[in-house]
């Protein structure tokens, strides 16, 4: 039996009076890739953004229920959201490097956390760029603007700056939907590599991607968790009629 990193219990998420997620419960495995699939508006991104409380930024959004991480309820009002986001990092759909140098993109959050020594910063920059499979491409231009990188490189830089914080969980919100197929393949390879050290939850619209990289897959439909199982089972022998229809492309 594998260990769980997150336990979701009766999670309901609202936007004002509208309920976007209807009481879901699921366990997220440690050091595994969990894919969230489903048609647009099914609540999967909302769920993802609730885990690290990014949804707090949306006026009127609120969540009920529990997401347990290391015996703490992440949804509690007492939760230190800033500390939480250091443990649970997030990479967004659109690459969003800061308009600074490649080096400063990674050290931005480190410096905030009082890591000041140049040698230590250099070390973490190299380490995280290597892990993000970007080091060889950018090592000669670390002090050039991050905006001079290609879209795929920018996204890997965003992954690098997230893992530089040494999180335990990395949330990926359709990380390669804005990329070309070659960059996409690189990002996928990278994600598989990353699961050795991190627990990964990825939202994707790409069925192929979910089946290629994930260990477990959760299928969402109109705010309900329809099916959650081992990826292979979901894609070869789903128990739910709707899951089968969705993955075979009959709707969504």
């Amino acid at each position, binding site marked *: 039996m594998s260990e769980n990193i997150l336990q979701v219990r009766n999670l309901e998420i609202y936007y004002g009076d509208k309920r976007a997620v209807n009481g879901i419960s699921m366990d997220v495995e440690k050091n595994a890739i969990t894919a969230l699939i489903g048609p647009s508006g099914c609540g999967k991104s909302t769920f993802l953004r609730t885990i690290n409380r990014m949804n707090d930024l949306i*006026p009127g959004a609120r969540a009920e229920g529990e997401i347990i991480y290391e015996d703490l309820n992440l949804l509690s009002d007492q939760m230190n959201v800033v500390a939480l*986001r*250091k443990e649970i*990092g997030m990479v*967004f759909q*659109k690459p*969003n*490097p800061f308009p600074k140098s490649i080096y400063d993109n990674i050290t931005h959050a480190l410096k*905030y956390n009082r890591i000041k020594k140049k040698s230590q910063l250099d070390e973490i920059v190299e380490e995280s760029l290597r892990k993000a499979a970007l080091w060889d491409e950018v090592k000669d231009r670390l002090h050039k603007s991050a*905006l001079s990188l290609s879209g795929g490189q920018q996204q890997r830089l965003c992954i690098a700056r997230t893992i530089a914080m040494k999180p335990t969980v990395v949330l990926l919100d359709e990380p390669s939907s804005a990329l070309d197929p070659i960059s996409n393949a690189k990002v996928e390879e990278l994600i598989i590599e990353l699961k050795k050290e991190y627990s990964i939850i990825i939202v994707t619209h790409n069925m192929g991607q979910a089946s290629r990289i994930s260990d477990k897959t959760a299928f969402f439909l109109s705010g309900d968790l329809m099916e959650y199982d081992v990826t292979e089972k979901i894609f070869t022998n789903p128990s739910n009629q709707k899951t089968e229809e969705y993955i075979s492309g009959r709707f969504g």
Partner: protein
Amino acid sequence: MTSKSADRIATGVFIVIAVIIVSILVGLFSYILVKGLTHISLDFLTSPSSNVRAGGGIRDQLFNSFYILVLTMIISVPLGLGGGIYMAEYAKPGKVTNTIRSCIEVLSSLPSIVIGMFGLLMFVNLTGWGYTILGGALALTVFNLPVLVRVSEDAIRSVPRELKEGSLALGITHWHTIKTILLPSAFPSILTGAILASGRVFGEAAALLFTAGLSTPRLNYLDWNPFSERSPLNIFRPAETLAVHIWSVNTQGLIPDIEEVSNGSAAVLVISVLLFNLLARWIGTRIHKRITATK
């Protein structure tokens, strides 16, 4: 009419409008310069003005203009920026915020002479300072603040949401994100706004008539003690600025060379604003390049 010819007509109309605007600008500019430049000399810039004789300069007025400008910006930029940050990042959408926003808009459309009257009540009479540089700078702050708040708010709002989320998602506090991500990205627009505002301040006369006054004490430029009465740095002395000087020479001047002095002053005013803008822009671009690592 085909859409192609409509497109051509639109292009033509906009070109005509652009040409009109540019020629008005060029015309006005060259009119002021041609009439004024002949009167500008080192002597004109470095000698004090005269009340009765011809040949007076604008040394003190020029200094006063820059001094009041700098003082106004020191007071109003932090306040305006703070207000802009509040409006863009902290104010919750609702009635209170909308009321604040309408107040700012009303304030920004107040005629400057009204602000001058207000300044007279507040910074001259109520404080008992009399006509002072500080009073003038405070009146100009009232004049300036709404624009700066508005500009800062818009500049911060126009920073892409993704950047802010990216920083917050790394476990960085709201304030640190504002400081290190939002403000640097908004910096060029804020700077442009501040430059436009300072141009307005530099050329403002009405708000200063009743606050900084129409006279300047005999200044001793070697006296750097800001508390001494004859020191140019004293903020509690009356000060006539260049724009006010142009107005007062034309309305109540007794000197025989009124036209030369006011034309020369007008040209100096325009050139100063221009130089100030260019300098601020140059410094701004350099700072921006440094923080964004673009070469």
